């Protein structure tokens, strides 16, 4: 699929080279990733979709520096990933907001660890809180927010440390359908204002097509890339786009690529 020949002329922002991840489970090791290669260009929005057990979250965690590959290399800006870094923001499905901190304090967390002066911290937090539309809840604790608001806060928190890459691990997976659609539109709006390289994991085919420049379809056992589908629909995307025949055709293609794998034994989860 994404062999070096197919990459863009400029050096890729993210470059995954034959990355493997094997978990030693019992006698037969579990191959979460069996040699995955993928290039993501600067400011590209890539979604990764696939059945559970296909290793999409493992791939994201390796890029985030939270897990180490057992083979191959993951490069960001040409440098191998050795651990987490502020240039890579991560958004988790479980929101992972610090429940004892207010929205503002959560958004300021990364800037505090980076020792950003207080005044600048305030100002930047304010900016990103406004960007995700939470200005009325800046001093609220996470427990008072809805799921969608929590995830918006997490997005603001990731943006606030000014990463060049956003790694999103099924961020809208726990939300109801309507909230999810709304957040997808808001995310694209945010992304159009503050361009970043995005890798977005999902199991929702509609979501994958709606957001992406490129949809990477993964397959399980062993975890691998099954197909890469370009989404040549123009941004900004809206509801009409979602209902257009072009969108429908792409969705069918991705759907087919994902669910065509059904014959393979279901992973135990």
């Amino acid at each position, binding site marked *: 699929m994404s062999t070096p020949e197919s990459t863009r002329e400029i050096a890729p922002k993210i470059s995954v080279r034959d990355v493997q991840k094997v978990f030693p489970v019992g006698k037969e090791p579990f191959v979460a990733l069996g040699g995955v290669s993928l290039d993501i260009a600067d400011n590209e929005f890539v979604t990764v979709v696939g059945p559970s057990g296909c290793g999409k979250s493992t791939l994201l965690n390796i890029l985030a520096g939270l897990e180490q590959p057992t083979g191959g290399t993951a490069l960001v800006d040409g440098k191998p990933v050795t651990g987490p870094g502020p240039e890579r923001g991560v958004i988790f499905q479980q929101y992972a907001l*610090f429940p004892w901190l207010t929205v503002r304090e959560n958004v300021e967390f990364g800037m505090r660890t980076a020792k950003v002066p207080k005044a600048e911290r305030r100002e930047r937090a304010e900016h990103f809180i406004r960007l995700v539309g939470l200005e009325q809840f800046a001093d609220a604790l996470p427990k008072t927010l809805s799921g969608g608001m929590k995830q918006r806060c997490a997005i603001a928190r990731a943006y606030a440390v000014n990463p060049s890459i956003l790694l999103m691990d099924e961020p809208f997976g726990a939300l109801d359908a309507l909230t999810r659609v709304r957040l997808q539109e808001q995310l694209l709006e945010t992304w159009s204002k503050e361009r970043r390289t995005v890798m977005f994991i999902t199991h929702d085919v509609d979501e994958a097509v709606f957001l992406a420049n490129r949809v990477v379809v993964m397959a399980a056992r062993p975890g691998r890339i099954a197909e890469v589908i370009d989404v040549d629909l123009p941004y900004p995307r809206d509801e009409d786009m979602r209902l257009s025949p072009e969108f429908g055709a792409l969705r069918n293609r991705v759907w087919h690529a994902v669910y065509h794998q059904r014959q393979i034994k279901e992973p135990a989860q």
Partner: protein
Amino acid sequence: MAVTSAGATRDGNAPARPRKNRTFLVLNIISIVAGIAIWWGLSLAGLQFPTPVEVVSAAWKMTLDGTLATDVGASLGRVLAGFALGSVAAVIVGFVMGWYTVARGLFEPWIQFFRTIPPLAMLPLVLVLMGIGESPKIFVIFLAAFLSCVISTYQGVVNVDKTLINAARVLGASDGTIFGRVVVPASTPFILVGMRVGLGSAWGTLVAAELLAAQAGLGHRMQSAQLYYDLPTIFVGIIAIGVLGLIMDRLLMIAGNKLTAWQENR
């Protein structure tokens, strides 16, 4: 009935709560009054109980001659000293155990072993080694508070949500920052539960320690009253112990609720 009418103006099931709380409070009061009435009845019926009036007058006399204040002061001083030392040590040891596997391996067998021994069982040994001053009593109380609180703190550190630690890591936090700004706040609820258990345990141990070896304190007062068959004084002692224990527990609970108001499901 102001509560009911105010509740009725609200919508949905909102009024159910205040009314329920009110009912609960009324039942509490009825129960207390009935309990005292039964006590009174039993003592009048010839059981060897002092009547509530006798107990109150004994308490009044002890308040006037200062013995009650002295005893309460002595007991509270011991329990607070032992409890404070025990909690601080428990939090430190609990954090170290939760954070470093080596420390966990080294501390755990000893803590598990001493946890099975009631702190009071150490008293004879401690009295021999530390004499009959304040230190042996404070030491057993320290032990009681420490052993109750340390496991809970350690559990709190171990149970910190891994996602929160990862979230801090990807935001650039160092190990030190993660400890101070994620692990410590995330384990506060556990520590507070441990402290409440520790306080109860410390208070119980204190009174028993005073019964065995003390020159002042509520336990000592009851012990000497026993020699003179002075039942009202014993009752005053029992009630004072209960009331003080309850007050300390409630204060700790209120402080805890303030500190952990951020918790999701409560």
